[in-house]
C-alpha cells in the first residue's frame, strides 16, 4: 500500500474512533448540566446524585475523547502536509479559534467542576458545567466550519498557488455549516440521551435503584425526543442543500446512475453494479426522492453519469464518481437508525407518561441495544459525508491523492498506524471495563465527603509568597 492509502486508512480510523467519544461527551455534558441546574433550582439532592453519577461516566469518556482529539490537531500536518499548505490560510483559522475559544473553556471549567464541588457556590459550580457544555458546542461549530469548507468552499480565493481567505464571515455563514452543525449537535444530544436511557433500562430490568434511574430517564427522554425531531428536520434541510451544492454525493447516496424520472422515486434498496454503472433490481417508493431533494413532490434529480460528464468538462479528465456502494449504504444505515431513535423516543415518552415504563420488558431490552444506534448512525453519517466527497479533499480544488505529505514514507505511516491502532484498542477495552465498573457501583457509591479544613488561609496556605 502507498502513502495515500495508508494515510486515508489512518485518518478514517483515528477520526471515526475519536467520533465515538465526541458525541457522547457533547450529549452527556448537556444533560448533566440540566440535572445540576435542577439540583440548584429544586434543591433536591437526587439531582445532585444524578449529575455526579453520570458525571463519572462522562469523565471517563471525555478523557478518551480529549486524548484522541489531540491527534486530530497534529495529523493534518503529519500526514496531509500538502493539504495543510494548500488550505492552511483558510482552514487553520477555525482550528486555532476552536483551541482558543473551546478547548481552554472545556478544560479549565471541567477542572473547576471536578475539583470544585466543595469549593464553589452551587450556582457557580453549575455554571461551570454549562460552560463546559458550551465549550463542546463551540468546538463542534468551529471544526464543522472547517469541514464545511471542504464540502463547499466559500470565502476563499485561489492565489499564490493556494486557497486564501478573503471573507471570514462567509466561512461562518456557510450554508453547509448551518445544516451540518445542527444535525451533528442534535445527533450528539441523542447519543447522550440514548446512552442514559439504555443504562437506565438495564437498571429497571434488574429492579435496582429504580427511583434514581426513573429521574434520569425522565430528563434523558425529553432530550431524546427533542433531538430526534431535530435530527430529522436538520437532516432533511441537509439533503436539500446537498442537491444544490454536491449533486454527485446525492446521486451516489441514491445509487442513481441516469437522471431520474420526474417526480423522482426514492430507492430503498438496490443491487449496485459499479462496473456496468447500473443497478440490477431496485425497490422504489414513488415521489419520495423529489420530496427529499426539493421539499416538494416533483422535480428530477441528476444522475452520476450526467454529472461525470459535466465534471470532466469542468475539471478535466478523471473519475469523479465516489465509491457508490459505501455512500449508498451508509446513507441508508444513518437514516434508518435516525428514524429508529425518533420512534423509540416517542414510544418511551408514551410509556413513561402512562406509568408503564418500568414493566415494559421488551421496550427496555430494545433500549439496551439502542444505545448503539446513535453511535452507528453518527459514524455512518460521516462515512457518507466524507466518502461521498471523494475524489475531492476540498471540493473542486484539490483531490485527496494530491493532499498527502510529500516527505513522509509509507513505513512511517504504517508504523504510526499500527501503534495508534493498538493504543486505541487498549484504550477502548479499558474504557469499556471502567464503564461497566462505574455502572455496577451504582449511584449510591458516591458518599458525600466533606472538606475537613474549610479555612483556605491556614498558615501553610499563606506562606508561599512571604
Amino acid at each position: 500500500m502507498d502513502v495515500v492509502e495508508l494515510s486515508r486508512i489512518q485518518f478514517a480510523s483515528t477520526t471515526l474512533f475519536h467520533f465515538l467519544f465526541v458525541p457522547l461527551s457533547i450529549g452527556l455534558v448537556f444533560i448533566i448540566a440540566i440535572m445540576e441546574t435542577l439540583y440548584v433550582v429544586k434543591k433536591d439532592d437526587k439531582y445532585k446524585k444524578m449529575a455526579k453519577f453520570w458525571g463519572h461516566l462522562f469523565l471517563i469518556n471525555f478523557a478518551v475523547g480529549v486524548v484522541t482529539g489531540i491527534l486530530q490537531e497534529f495529523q493534518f500536518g503529519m500526514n496531509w502536509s500538502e493539504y495543510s499548505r494548500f488550505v492552511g490560510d483558510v482552514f487553520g483559522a477555525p482550528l486555532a479559534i476552536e483551541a482558543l475559544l473551546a478547548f481552554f473553556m472545556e478544560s479549565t471549567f471541567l477542572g473547576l467542576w471536578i475539583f470544585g464541588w466543595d469549593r464553589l457556590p452551587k450556582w457557580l459550580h453549575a455554571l461551570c458545567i454549562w460552560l463546559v457544555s458550551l465549550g463542546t458546542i463551540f468546538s463542534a461549530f468551529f471544526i464543522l466550519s472547517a469541514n464545511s469548507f471542504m464540502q463547499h468552499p466559500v470565502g476563499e480565493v485561489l492565489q499564490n498557488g493556494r486557497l486564501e481567505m478573503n471573507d471570514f464571515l462567509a466561512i461562518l455563514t456557510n450554508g453547509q455549516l448551518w445544516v451540518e452543525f445542527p444535525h451533528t449537535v442534535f445527533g450528539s444530544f441523542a447519543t447522550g440521551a440514548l446512552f442514559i436511557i439504555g443504562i437506565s433500562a438495564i437498571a429497571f430490568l434488574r429492579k435496582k435503584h429504580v427511583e434514581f434511574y426513573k429521574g434520569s430517564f425522565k430528563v434523558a427522554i425529553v432530550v431524546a425526543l427533542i433531538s430526534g425531531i431535530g435530527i430529522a428536520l436538520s437532516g432533511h434541510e441537509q439533503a436539500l442543500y446537498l442537491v444544490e451544492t454536491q449533486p454527485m454525493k446525492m446521486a451516489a447516496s441514491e445509487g442513481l446512475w441516469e437522471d431520474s424520472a420526474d417526480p423522482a422515486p426514492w430507492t430503498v434498496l438496490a443491487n449496485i453494479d459499479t462496473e456496468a454503472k447500473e443497478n440490477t433490481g431496485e425497490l422504489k417508493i414513488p415521489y419520495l426522492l423529489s420530496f427529499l431533494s426539493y421539499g416538494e413532490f416533483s422535480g428530477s434529480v441528476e444522475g452520476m453519469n450526467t454529472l461525470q460528464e459535466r465534471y470532466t468538462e469542468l475539471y478535466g479528465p478523471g473519475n469523479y464518481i465516489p465509491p457508490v456502494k459505501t455512500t449508498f449504504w451508509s446513507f441508508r444505515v444513518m437514516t434508518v437508525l435516525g428514524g429508529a431513535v425518533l420512534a423509540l423516543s416517542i414510544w418511551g415518552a408514551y410509556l413513561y407518561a402512562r406509568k408503564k415504563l418500568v414493566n415494559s420488558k421488551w421496550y427496555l431490552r430494545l433500549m439496551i441495544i439502542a444505545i448503539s444506534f446513535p453511535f452507528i448512525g453518527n459514524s455512518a453519517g460521516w462515512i457518507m459525508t466524507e466518502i461521498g466527497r471523494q475524489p475531492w479533499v476540498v471540493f473542486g480544488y484539490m483531490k485527496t491523492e494530491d493532499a498527502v505529505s510529500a516527505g513522509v514514507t509509507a513505513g512511517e505511516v504504517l508504523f504510526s498506524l499500527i501503534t495508534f491502532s493498538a493504543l486505541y484498542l487498549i484504550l477502548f477495552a479499558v474504557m469499556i471495563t471502567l464503564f461497566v465498573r462505574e455502572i455496577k457501583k451504582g449511584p449510591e457509591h458516591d458518599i458525600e465527603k466533606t472538606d475537613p479544613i474549610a479555612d483556605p488561609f491556614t498558615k501553610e496556605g499563606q506562606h508561599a509568597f512571604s
Partner: protein
Amino acid sequence: MLSLNEFWFILVAVLFVGFFFLEGFDFGVGIASKFVAKDDLERRAFINSIGPYWDANEVWLITAIGAMFAAFPNWYASMLSGFYLCFAFILFGLIGRGVAFEFRGKAEHPTWRKTWDWVILFGSIIPPLTFGIMFTALIQGVPIDENMHMHAGVSDVINVYTVLGGVTLTMLCVWHGLIFGTLRLMDTLRERCRRAAKNLLPINAVLLVAFLGMTFFNTDMFSVHGNILEYLFMVGILVYIASGYFITRKRDGWAFLMSGLIMILLIASVFIGLFPRVMISSISEAYSLTVQTASSGDYSLKVMTYISLALLPFVLGYQIWSYYVFRKRVDHKEHMEY
C-alpha cells in the same frame, strides 16, 4: 511597527513558552511522583496537585499548534511532516498520560495503579524529551529542500547535541515540577520536594552550561541578533543563582518564579534565535522557511489577530481564576479520589 507576520511569530512563541512554563511543571510532577512519593496516597497527592490544571496546560500546546497552522501553514506542514516520528512519540506520551490521570483512581488494585503510574512516568518523560530533541534539531538546522520539504535522516534528529537538549529540557521540567510541588503539597512531601529540587541544582547547572556551550559552537543562535542572547544568558545565570538562594531559604513562591523564568528564558531564546526564520535549512540558507515565506495572507492574519485579541483576556482571566480557586495545598485528610 510590528508586521502581522512578526506579531504571529511572537504569539506562537508565547504559546510555546506558556506551554513549557505550565505543562513543564506538570510533566515534572508526573515524573517526580514516581520517585519522590513513597506510597499510593502520596502519589495521589502529587497527581491532585496538578489535577485541576494539566488538561488546560496541554491546551496551550494545542493552541500553539493551531496558531501555527493558521498563521504559518508552511511551517506547520513542513515541521509536522518532517518530524513525523517525533510527533508520533509525543502523541503516544500525551495520550497515555491523559487517560492515566483519569483512569488510575478508578480501581484500587495495586497492579492497576502501578501500571498507570508507569504510563504517567513515560507519558511525562517522552513529550519534553522529544520536544527538546526536536527544538534543538530545529536550531541546528535540518535538511529542507527548495520546495520546503524536509527530508531528515536519523542523525539530523538524533545526535549528541539534540539528545543533550532533550535531556536538559526534561530535567528542567523535573526541577520546575518539584518546586511547584513545594507550593501545592504539605509537610514531609513538601520537604522532600524541596530537598530534591536542591539536589538537582548542580546537575541541571552542568546540563545547562553544556547545552548552551554546544549551542554556541553548533548553531548561529548567539550571533544572529547581536548580543541579545548573551545578555539573556547573563540574566539566566543571575536567575539560576537566585533560585538556589530561594530554595535554600525555603521561599518557595520565589523559587517557583525563578524556575519558571529559567524555562521562559530558555524557550524564548530558541524563538529569538530562530527569528526571522521559523525552520533553518541545513542545505542552503535560501531554503530556510521564514515568517514571510511560511505565513498566511494578510487578510487571514488580520482576522485572526482581531479574534485572538478579543478572546485572550477572557482565556487568561478564567485560567488565573482557576489557579486562585485551588490555591490551597493538597491535603491528605481531604477527599483524594476524583
